[in-house]
């Protein structure tokens, strides 16, 4: 057994809110469980109740055709990875989701889970930051949307309160021509956590470039947007690197040294820009 907890399945959002409220802060939400169950096993978390939200219809929403891409909190990552529309219009999201873990893990793990776990190395966070995604949240006080930039407050910490449930993540449907890209430095080709990960989006119509960096600060970091009009690829790269280095503070840990992270970050950023601005990748 993994620990000493009880389990309940919610069948509606309101039902889930009630159960959370009853648990008074001692419950954890269970979607894929691929982070939560490991933390419980390793003694890092000990909730008294696991609230399974996979049976709530609303959390199974997955809509790609409307003005917003809506990814329900219970949608497994493989659905994103394999969906043709996501692969073509938001390839960075598909790539990031793909890199989160093995095929088996991706059949359980969710985008919402990856985000709410709030690891500084969360693979899907940088691209969601670039896309200005919003997290839809329900609580007894009602519904609200939190921009992903406000969500992360520290290492494995979000601004969510214990009575809140995420129902979905929403991304504005990309305007024609928007390109996205994601790159991740690992220690091995097999499944691995990121040593550094970066994502970017580029809208050719506005010539606005957004870049976000992960694994180099307590939270994933969105750099200030850049208007690339009239600038060479090299000077854009210089600017992005300067911004990135100012906004991040890589540490040395069991995975990599700060020196390696600092060395690889500019390399990934230049390669990211090659993909976004040089006619490769994206649309």
């Amino acid at each position, binding site marked *: *057994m993994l620990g000493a907890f009880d389990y309940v399945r919610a069948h509606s959002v309101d039902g889930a809110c009630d159960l959370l409220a009853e648990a008074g802060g001692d419950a954890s939400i269970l979607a894929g469980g691929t982070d939560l169950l490991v933390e419980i096993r390793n003694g890092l978390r000990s909730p008294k109740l696991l609230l399974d939200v996979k049976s709530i219809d609303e959390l199974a929403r997955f809509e790609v055709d409307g003005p917003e891409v809506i990814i329900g909190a219970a949608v497994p990552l493989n659905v994103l990875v394999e969906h043709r529309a996501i692969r073509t219009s938001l390839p960075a999201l598909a790539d990031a989701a793909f890199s989160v873990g093995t095929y088996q893990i991706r059949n359980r793990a969710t985008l919402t889970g990856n985000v709410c776990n709030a690891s500084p190395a969360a693979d899907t966070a940088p691209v969601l930051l670039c896309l200005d995604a919003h997290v839809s949240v329900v609580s007894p006080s009602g519904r609200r949307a939190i921009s992903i930039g406000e969500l992360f407050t520290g290492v494995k910490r979000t601004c969510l309160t214990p009575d809140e449930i995420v129902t979905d993540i929403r991304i504005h449907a990309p305007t024609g021509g928007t390109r996205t890209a994601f790159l991740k*430095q690992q*220690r*091995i*080709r*097999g*499944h*691995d*956590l990121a*040593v550094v990960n970066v994502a970017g989006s580029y809208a050719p119509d506005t010539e606005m470039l957004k870049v976000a960096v992960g694994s180099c600060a307590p939270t994933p970091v969105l750099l200030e947007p850049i208007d690339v009009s009239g600038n060479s690829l090299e000077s854009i790269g210089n600017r992005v690197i300067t911004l990135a280095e100012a906004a991040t503070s890589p540490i040395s840990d*069991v*995975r*990599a*040294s700060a*020196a*390696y992270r600092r*060395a*690889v970050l500019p*390399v990934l950023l230049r390669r990211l820009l090659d993909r976004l601005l040089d006619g490769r990748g994206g649309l």
Partner: protein
Amino acid sequence: MASELRYVGKPASRDDAIDKVTGAARYTHDLTVPGMLHAALVTSPHAFARIVRVDTSAADALPGVRAILTGNGLCYRLGLYLQDKCILARGVVRYQGEPVVAVAADTLDIAREACRLVEVEYEPLDPVLDPRDALEKGAPLVHPDLHTYAHMEGVYFPESGTNIAHHQKVRKGDVDAAFASADVTLTAKFYNPPVQHVPMETHAAIAQALPGGRAEIWTSSQSPYTVRHLMSVCFDVPHANIRVHVPYVGGGFGGKAGLHLEPLAYVLSKAAAGRPVKVVATREEEFNTLPSRQGLHSTVEIGADRDGTIVSLKATYVWDAGAYADYGVNVGRAAAYSGAGPYVVPNCWIDSYVVYTNKIFGTAYRGFGHLEVLWGIERAIDMMTRKLDMDPVEFRRANLLREGETTITGEPFTAGHGSPVECLDAVARAIDWGTPSQPPPEPHKVRGKGIAMLHKAPAMPTYTSCAVVIKLDEDGAADLLVSGVDYGQGTYTVLRQIAAEELKIPIEKVHVTWECDTAFSPYDWQTVASRFAYMGGNAIIEAAADCLRQIRDVAARALDVAPNEIVCDDGAAFVKGQPDRRIAYAQLALGYTFENGNSIGGPVIGHGRYIATGLTHLDPKTGQGLPAQYWTYGAHGVEVEVDTQTGEIEILDIATALDAGKVLNPKLCVGQIVGGVVQGLGSALWEGFQFDENGRFLNPAFVDYKIPTAKDLPKRSQQILLENPQPGGPYGARGIAEHPMISVPSAVGNALFDAVGIEFTTLPLSYERILLRIREESEGA
């Protein structure tokens, strides 16, 4: 016999595969025994500490707890070669992860909960974490009572008052004079971190203490008889009192040789009124509590003449044994006699020190020190070629052992040793040595090629032996009883092939009883050292001859001819030249009955054995002697591609050549090479234990200890098997099980030099290490 072999040399399929692909194969992890309890461990958080106080009262009170043990009540000493270890820490803990308290309970959950309730108070001491520090005068002593430990006298020499568990020497010729007169000399230092075997099945054992000082054990082990022997010595009971079963084993790689969880399971059972107790290592315990491959610091000095002849070699090997000597002292011994590589070295001086530190201890690991030693030797050889401006293949070819030469321990090299030169040439051809790599399309990538030699002999006692029994079934089929263990390498299939060939029956009629049971399976030393196919194969040949002798004797009487007129073939005995006068084995297997009812003969049971021949102890002062039953030589050729901006390295091609003597089963040989090469790449590129400044293990899980996955394979892997026969080997075969991984890191390191012009001396060759060195070099330039 020159005629075509029917089974030996063919790619026969394993007959255990059907159990494994259906889930029917049961490993120790899967076994339950009636009344079985489950165990959990409290392990030390400190690398070195006095145990001040242990309070198990809260744990004791938990319902379902049947036994709690601490080191206090367990004054037994264990050790294969040097008895330095207790079952649970007594008085002092010597590595972070060392078991301190063990609990047996009705369920694993209760046992774990009980462990959480145990309180242990420690007084941390200053650990010694680097074996080089441990050699310094005044270093903390990991074993202050070293002088009181029993050990294998005449073979191992622990030095009391120090952290030296053993010191092996080779002294040949006059190195000082040779270095002084050499045209070119080179000194370089190298490091291998400790790594883990990572068998997919972690260590597991079930033991039941039976009345009268007996025990029955089921264990995931490579050596049932060693388990029996060491238990017998430890608990001072006759060998016959200990019965060991080994079911299917989910990988060993050396880590499951010797004695590990069995004594603990046994004493827990004794404390639990004889209920069987199962101890299964979690994956974290497999990394942090069960033993590793020793780390190694090497210093290698080579002297050569301008014409490319090696005149002298001096090596100092400082092995990081960790907290206990286990197999480490034998690794240190083998490293000395193998420690100059497969070369002619007229003047040689080797010191191999096995040094205690306060870290997880080392044990046998595939290659038994040879990967670690050849990392230094083959890299140093390559560095010497830079100094001499000679081609690395040419330099090696000029210096490799050949007929007429002598090894560094005074062993004459003969044609029967096989051909290192042919192995070298084979891999050089295979990777098109001499032709530079095609330039990669991306400008920030570079490619390079490298070569490395390998050699190894079984590092085993001079009296190592093996016995097998073949018994015939009513239908003339044969059952092989062996207690070597097939933990994936496929030796049982090879033994079936040999038995079928020798008995002249179809291989489908030859079975190996899969589970070893020391009550029924005859003695085998241990399944390590790439010796089981060799020694077991020879024993099977003898046992088959014994069966045929019995068959011929009875058939002769039945057919009224002399025994030497009987020929055996196709599962029958018949009169030479008169094939119609025949009796099928099935009619002889349990004796023969005449028409009138008279019966002669009896059940046909053949036995065979093999003992190591001609081995001698090594002279403690000079290391001279004959340690090797047979050497297996080989080489790797590697082509790599490096991303100079991220340090990512990819293996484009890796060719492995081994002189197998005789390829008993090509499918299994290739399987060993493909698997061993990938395991070697693990050591080369990704694997290594990390510790913090207090000696705490930082990466005891797959999250941060990475082993190769299906995505990490070389683009091309070539396997070249040479067959220069080994005199005394079954059909001329030598062992090849460990060899495929031995020089993989060396060859990759050599290829890296060709690619990026940097001499790497520390493993693993991680992307980080490669990139930061590239940056360092280009900033320095």
